[in-house]
């Protein structure tokens, strides 16, 4: 029998599965880093979170009689990212609840892959922060490989939370120090599981950019605008810490590289992409400086996720019009 499918009769080697597993691969360096810095519990939380995510998707699709797509890789990504967004010493059920919420409510109730408006992992994190604020922001563990001198008394806080606690001049100096920034970059500081090493996150993201599995323009405009705006605020004295500290601390790098670039929840046009990144960066800084949370990354990206359908109306000029 001759096959009668429509043209084209060849297809590019790119596939959704390859993209998804490419993103998973890009998250591996940071995962290895967090195990190195925080110990085996980091791996335990990630595995637990991934299993929850995949199982939730599978069960949902089974019960609602939809095509089972839980092996397409997207649920695994959500699982990893949820775990990356919680502190390593949070109770195990935090990972389970976060992943369940991300997949069940944020992804599947909105229609599944491609139809969700919000990045599932980020919305999952926002849900956890709103429901158990003390667990999500209060208790932090320092990395097993020691901590920065000068901050010894503060081992229970992340560099960013210190900032929210009206720190002394001495502390601020420590935060702005070369040692601190280097530690932030390499990964030797307290924080969420996956946020810890900017370097390892960058290595992974570089792979995604080269493969075009993530849009570098979003990362650049997001992180870039955080840098510029916090730089302006630093110069005029609104924020005590320098812009390098701002982009290296908290989830700016993780969010800017891996969550803002989520294809499903970011705009599809060139104009939209730049506005998305810049807008997200601005919201992030505003929330950090004037908001109630030390961390503005999740909300800034969620806000931009919400604006994405609107940004998608910025249609490019059609050829010949």
């Amino acid at each position, binding site marked *: 029998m001759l096959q009668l499918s429509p043209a084209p009769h060849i297809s590019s080697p790119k596939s959704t599965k390859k993209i998804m597993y490419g993103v998973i691969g890009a998250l591996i360096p940071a995962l290895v880093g967090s195990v190195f810095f925080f110990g085996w519990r980091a791996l335990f939380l990630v595995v637990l979170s991934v299993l929850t995510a995949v199982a939730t998707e599978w069960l949902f699709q089974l019960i609602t009689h939809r095509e089972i797509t839980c092996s397409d890789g997207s649920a695994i990504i959500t699982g990893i990212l949820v775990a990356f967004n919680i502190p390593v010493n949070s109770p195990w059920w935090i990972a389970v609840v976060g992943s369940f919420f991300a997949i069940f409510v944020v992804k599947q109730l909105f229609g599944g892959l491609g139809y969700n408006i919000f990045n599932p992992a980020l919305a999952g994190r926002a849900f956890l922060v709103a429901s158990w604020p003390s667990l999500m922001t209060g208790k932090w563990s320092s990395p097993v490989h020691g901590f920065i001198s000068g901050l010894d008394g503060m081992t229970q806080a992340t560099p960013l939370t210190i900032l929210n606690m009206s720190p002394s001049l001495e502390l601020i100096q420590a935060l702005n120090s070369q040692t601190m920034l280097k530690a932030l970059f390499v990964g030797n500081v307290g924080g969420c599981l996956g946020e810890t090493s900017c370097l390892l996150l960058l290595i992974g993201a570089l792979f995604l950019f080269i493969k075009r599995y993530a849009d570098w323009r979003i990362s650049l405009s997001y992180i870039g605008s955080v840098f510029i705006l916090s730089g302006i605020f630093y110069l005029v004295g609104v924020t005590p810490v320098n812009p390098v500290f701002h982009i290296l601390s908290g989830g700016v790098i993780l969010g800017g590289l891996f969550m803002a670039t989520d294809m499903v929840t970011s705009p599809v046009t060139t104009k939209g992409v730049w506005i998305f990144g810049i807008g997200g960066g601005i919201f992030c800084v505003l929330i950090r400086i004037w908001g109630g949370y030390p961390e503005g990354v999740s909300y800034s990206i969620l806000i931009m996720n919400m604006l994405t359908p609107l940004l998608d109306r910025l249609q490019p000029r*059609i050829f010949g019009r």
Partner: protein
Amino acid sequence: MKLLSFKGGTHPLERKELSSDAHIKRVEPPEIVYLPLSQHTGAPSKVIIEKKDEVTVGMKIAEGDGKISVPLHSSVAGVFMGVVDYPHPLGEKKPAMKIKVDHEKTGEWEGKERDPESLSPEEIIKIVRESGIVGMGGAAFPTHFKLQPPPDKPIADLIINGAECEPFLTSDYRLMMERTEDILKGVDIIRRVLNPERIWISIESNKMDAVEKMKEAASTYPWAKITVHATKYPQGSEKQLVQSITGLEVPDGGLPFDVGAYVQNVGTAVAIYEAVRYSKPLYERIVTVTGSVREPSNFLVPIGTPFEYLIEQTSGVIGELKKIINGGPMMGIAQVTGEVPVIKGTTGILIQNEEEIIPGQTSACIRCASCIDICPLNLMSTELYKFISMDNFDRAEELGLLSCIECGTCSYVCPSNIPLTQYFKYGKAMIAKRRK
């Protein structure tokens, strides 16, 4: 060297090496040829001979019906067996003239020679029509009609399309290698009709030997300039070709002459030359038969030859025959049967076996925007798809659905294998239907 290019597009595997070295080979006609009355854009031709009549090579057997139509000529000598409903490469059965071939009497073309210089543009246009010439790049639009742009739209740039951007196909390439001089002589005739300011012969950078050859031959035709284009699909699309040469965008809904440009395929130039110089009507053409066949070839084929006959001539299919495609892999049409005949617009026949066919499995759109990034017309393919699948044709039209050139690039790049182009063809058909 700076390569000319356009915005968007993609780089599918070319696979031209399969057949690019195969010299053009004339094939013996089969026992029976089927000549569809509709081989061109426009009204079908009308039969002017009777059943059982004897025909000769190049004899006019059907007349063009109206302005946008051309006559049809027999590709063989033999006996006319009547009009039958026969499979057509563009889909569905259509009336075709069945001719039983007399191999003894079927020979090469002999016709009276003419001096193109002595003919007026009007006479040339008349010859082109009488010779049944249509665009040979696939679109098969009657050439005599195209040669008469509105008088208020003078042609500044005459562009001869040798881009051949479809993967696999090499018929234009072989023509440029083996009939270089004839192409230029054909262009010279078109030049005399249109009086353009500039003449460009456009070739993609994956055919540099053709470029060299053309440059060499063009030394005696000072008006001809050879342009080398980035190897990128769909470089050979009229609008993209005009844009990469002149920098001008053909207006939405308009034609190249709206920006003073005129595009004609290299094969058509040769057909025009042969018609004007040797009174030879269009009854044979070069067809690349390639893909999963033992000996990929470039055949000179009598129009009306069934595909399966040509596939046999390549020593057969490698593996299990799964798909027969009229044209290239990006825009070609999969055939129901190998019985379909070669028509004037058949540039190639692509064969796919079980390993080559792509799986039909699709998944959800992940909004990766690849389809938008590559659309040469700047359309938001994924949005068009979304609205068409919701039957919201009005919104799709607002988003420019009718500008889509159905090039297939978006479907090709889509990682979820969504048949986007198919949706667009459907959406356009629905809009056309509602307008009626």
